[in-house]
């Protein structure tokens, strides 16, 4: 039996032996499609930065934005609402096509003038200020804005406006001269970009193989080949790291970290994800119309205790809807959300709360620790006299008028308060359109100043006013930023970079090194 085991172990090891500069990533999830334009999921965000470029990039090793040239070598505002960009020459797509100004315009306008519904949805919430891009000559393009834009570089460096080849995409299906919906759908299975790694194999939901792209315009990729395989089960991911089947594994829960850290051959890297798990409350539910009840629901929750119990203290509990990644707009001294059970009791008494049941909806597994947090919140509510009940259901209830409270998330889609609170709680944005959050002309005016003022101080002041509104008439309580960890062999030097949106697996030059290569 022992001989059999040994033989099979050898058989197993042979195909797994990795050449230098080749690594295997065991990912909890592998995308079912790869299209940076329509995707903003946590799963997809892992993969785009290695294969695609934007016109402007940022130094991702720094928390504060420092913009660097990418497919544009320079850019300037020639009018308050027009940015002119000079394009890098000699850039080649993975399929061998040279990148032209037409490709850039096609890529930008597929979003800015979107007709493909998944693009339309993404463009509306973050690129609505940009009606179009136009070609001036072979090396120059212009992007137009409807209004003065304080976030030019931030928005032009979004994953959604990564550059893709026009002729290749249009020729994927149907008429090769026309961009049809089916072309974009086909592109998502055969993606082509200009980044340092080309997609060599893509088996949706199963496997992705990157190969170094030798004609990359920038610094050559440090790895020859990266295999990403889906290993859904946490125990299997950790074991794969131990057996050598994987060199890096993703999504390790806090209580599993010691398994890896206690092994001398392995280590972990982690960070608080730029995403809030939040509790939302329905301002328009007949029983919750009095803001004092919602204030009490919020003040009763000891978020530090949730952090200690569920995240071993590694999550980040915010005092307001803000993140360090937001640079000059980060306002850590602002206190919007507190734990004050005594005040909660007082408010409930003042509001005449008669002990009616407040239902808290949660899906069983969608948010890590979501159900446990909901159960703990019920205990905390009970401590101030609120009768709560957890309702576990898969169905999204945020648009249900009967919804009283539930969990949700507010990700940071880009490093600005507009990329998080600004998208989710915009006038006519997702929350208001679902009927659980109200805005008025005053709120819209504050939001407008916060979104569009080109003076940082005015934006900050407007954000404080918005947070005051949230405090006075709460519809949201950010619980914490969950802690996300990766496990890896000691021979790998890699860690999530602070300048990226959550979950990006950045294997570009300067981001990863292998010991001995």
């Amino acid at each position, binding site marked *: 039996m022992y001989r059999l085991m040994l033989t099979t172990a050898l058989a197993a090891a042979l195909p797994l032996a990795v050449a230098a500069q080749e690594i295997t990533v065991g990912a909890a999830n592998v995308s079912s499609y790869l299209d940076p334009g329509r995707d903003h*999921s946590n799963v997809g965000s892992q993969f785009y930065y290695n294969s695609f470029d934007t016109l402007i990039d940022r130094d991702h090793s720094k928390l504060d934005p420092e913009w660097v040239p990418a497919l544009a070598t320079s850019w300037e505002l020639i009018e308050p609402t027009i940015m002119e960009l000079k394009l890098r020459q000699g850039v080649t797509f993975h399929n061998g096509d040279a990148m032209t100004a037409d490709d850039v315009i096609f890529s930008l306008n597929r979003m800015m003038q979107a007709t493909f519904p998944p693009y339309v949805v993404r463009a509306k919430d973050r690129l609505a200020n940009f009606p179009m891009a136009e070609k001036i000559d072979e090396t120059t393009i212009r992007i137009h804005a409807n209004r003065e834009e304080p976030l030019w570089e931030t928005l032009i460096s979004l994953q959604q406006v990564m550059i893709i080849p026009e002729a290749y995409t249009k020729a994927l299906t149907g008429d090769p001269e026309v961009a049809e919906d089916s072309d974009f759908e086909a592109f*998502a299975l055969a993606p082509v970009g200009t980044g340092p790694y080309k997609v060599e194999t893509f088996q949706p939901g199963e496997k992705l193989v990157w190969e170094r792209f030798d004609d990359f315009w920038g610094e050559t990729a440090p790895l020859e080949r990266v295999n990403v395989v889906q290993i859904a089960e946490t125990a299997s991911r950790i074991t794969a790291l131990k*057996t050598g089947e994987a060199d890096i594994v993703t999504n390790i829960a806090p209580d599993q970290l010691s398994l890896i850290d206690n092994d001398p051959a392995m280590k972990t890297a982690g960070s608080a994800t730029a995403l809030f798990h939040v509790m939302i409350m329905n301002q328009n539910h007949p029983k919750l119309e009095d803001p004092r009840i919602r204030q009490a629901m919020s003040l009763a929750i000891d978020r530090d205790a949730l952090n200690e119990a569920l995240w071993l203290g590694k999550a980040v509990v915010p005092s307001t809807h803000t993140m360090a990644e937001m640079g000059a707009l980060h306002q850590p001294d602002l206190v919007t959300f507190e734990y004050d059970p005594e005040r909660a009791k007082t408010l409930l008494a003042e509001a005449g709360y008669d002990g009616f049941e407040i239902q808290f909806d949660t899906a069983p597994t969608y948010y890590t620790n979501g159900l446990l947090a909901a159960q703990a919140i019920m205990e905390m509510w009970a401590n101030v006299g609120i009768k709560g009940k957890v309702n576990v259901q898969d169905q999204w209830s945020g*648009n249900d008028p009967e919804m009283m409270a539930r969990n949700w998330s507010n990700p940071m889609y880009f490093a600005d308060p507009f990329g998080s609170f600004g998208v989710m709680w915009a006038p006519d944005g997702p929350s208001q359109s679902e009927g659980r959050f109200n805005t008025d002309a005053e709120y819209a005016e504050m939001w407008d100043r916060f979104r569009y003022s080109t003076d940082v101080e005015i934006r900050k002041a407007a954000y404080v006013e918005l947070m005051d509104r949230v405090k006075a008439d709460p519809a949201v309580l950010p619980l914490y930023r969950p802690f996300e960890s990766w496990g890896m062999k000691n021979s790998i030097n890699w860690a999530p970079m602070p300048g990226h949106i959550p979950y990006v697996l950045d294997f570009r030059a300067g981001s990863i090194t292998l010991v001995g290569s």
Partner: protein
Amino acid sequence: MIPYVTRILVKSVVTLFAIATVTFIATRLSGNPIDTFLGDGLTTEGRAELIRYFQLDGSLWQQYLAFLRGALSGEFGLSFVDRRPVTEVVGDRLWASGQLLLASVGLTVALSIPLGILAALYRRSWVGSAVMMLAFTGYAVPSFILSIVMILVFSYWLNWLPVVGNATFAHFIMPTIAMSGVLIAALTRFTRNAMLDVLGQDFIRTARAKGLREARVVLRHGLGNAGVTVISVIGLQVAGLAAAGSVVVESIFSWPGIGQLLVNAALIRDYPVLQFGVITVAVAVVIINAVTDLSYALADPRIRLARS
């Protein structure tokens, strides 16, 4: 024989229709795909636009009729996520699941029939007791526990066996054992009991009295007659394995088969993939059952005659 086969076919078609309907309803009750696979932060208007795009805007009845029309013409739609025909998405995974199923059935038959015979022949010695103890233990341990324990011992501690995928022979060892554990236990018990029943019959005594060798008595006359019971158990258990066992085991061992695909599709509510995946598994189960029924008839002329 022909009416018997016809009856099996009609029964199979009705079963498949019922499964397709239940799957359709169950997927619709479980949540909207737009809410799960596109992430948080859609406006009501944006959601409506996507619901239209993915043709989920008709009434349930209209969607059901469209689904049935498609199914009858062999069109099961496109995956919501990667927009490939679901026949292709599921087809890509069929061979991997088939391999694992065949390996598991092979291992089960190879181990449990000899073990069952052994347990019957030596029922009063320690050999029989040991085999039965193993069988009871195997029956009581669910496949996910067996999988995790094997991973812990043979991969995490000993580093002997790989845990991810199906690239080499070594990759088959743990998933095959995990898939077949309960099946081996069940079949060993049934084989033992069937053998005990048969070995106590008069014709066995007659065979022995004729002076036949014991091996011939046991294998030809004993197993030959116990075969109907054994076949029925193999059929039932393999059908169960195809339907449920692969979902757990494939997920744990990242086996690129239908089970893993179904779990992913269920999590993100990819209705078309889920529907066609379940129907594919159901077809496999119906075929296995039909083959089992026919095997009965072939193995035992009394059944064939009685049923026709």
